[in-house]
């Protein structure tokens, strides 16, 4: 099956700093999503981005499908950004998603 690698595995930032999270995948994909899992376990949709660039407030994402990677940018980080960020891809047309191992982000005040 498809392999999904996220980096870095852990990231500690001071409030206000910027960061870039990366997701590499081993095969072409139909869909790619970024999620934020908050400390209460909820998976929150950030971006649905099989290709191109999207922005939502302080967050933006870029997927270069031909080179099999996606980037999530977080600017002016806040303590509420803490949690685990997952990249999930789908490449079977059946819809199931394969998740990466996640990046655990800690933003310190």
């Amino acid at each position, binding site marked *: 099956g498809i392999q999904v690698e996220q980096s870095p595995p852990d990231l500690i930032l001071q409030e206000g700093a910027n960061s870039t999270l990366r997701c590499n995948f081993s095969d072409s994909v*139909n869909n790619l*999503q970024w999620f934020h899992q908050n400390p209460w*376990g909820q*998976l929150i*949709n950030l971006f649905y981005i099989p290709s191109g660039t999207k922005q939502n407030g302080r967050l933006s994402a870029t997927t270069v499908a031909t080179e099999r990677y996606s980037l999530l940018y977080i600017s002016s980080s806040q303590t509420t950004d803490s949690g685990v960020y997952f990249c*999930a891809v789908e490449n079977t047309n*059946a*819809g*199931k998603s394969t998740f990466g191992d996640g990046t655990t982000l800690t933003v310190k005040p």
Partner: protein
Amino acid sequence: AAGVIQSPRHLIKEKRETATLKCYPIPRHDTVYWYQQGPGQDPQFLISFYEKMQSDKGSIPDRFSAQQFSDYHSELNMSSLELGDSALYFCASSPTGTSTNNEQFFGPGTRLTVL
């Protein structure tokens, strides 16, 4: 906006007992997915349904079964529970399972603890 509803939110069972988890997808979403997330792990795909038919199957134990009903809600039935089944179980729904646009929306999860 309506979201995916899962019940119960928390469940505690003894080993060898059975459990039933329920999922109510977003209205007009015809595809439902089940994922299992163990402690410190990423979510792992279990099974999915499109228009009440099983559309894909992942690493779901034989002790587990699931179905999607005529109103599109889904139930995950778990029997002979083991300690290792303790996990967060997510249901997700998407508007269609066969097009190229199947953004998945996740419910809040059911946290199952097996004692």
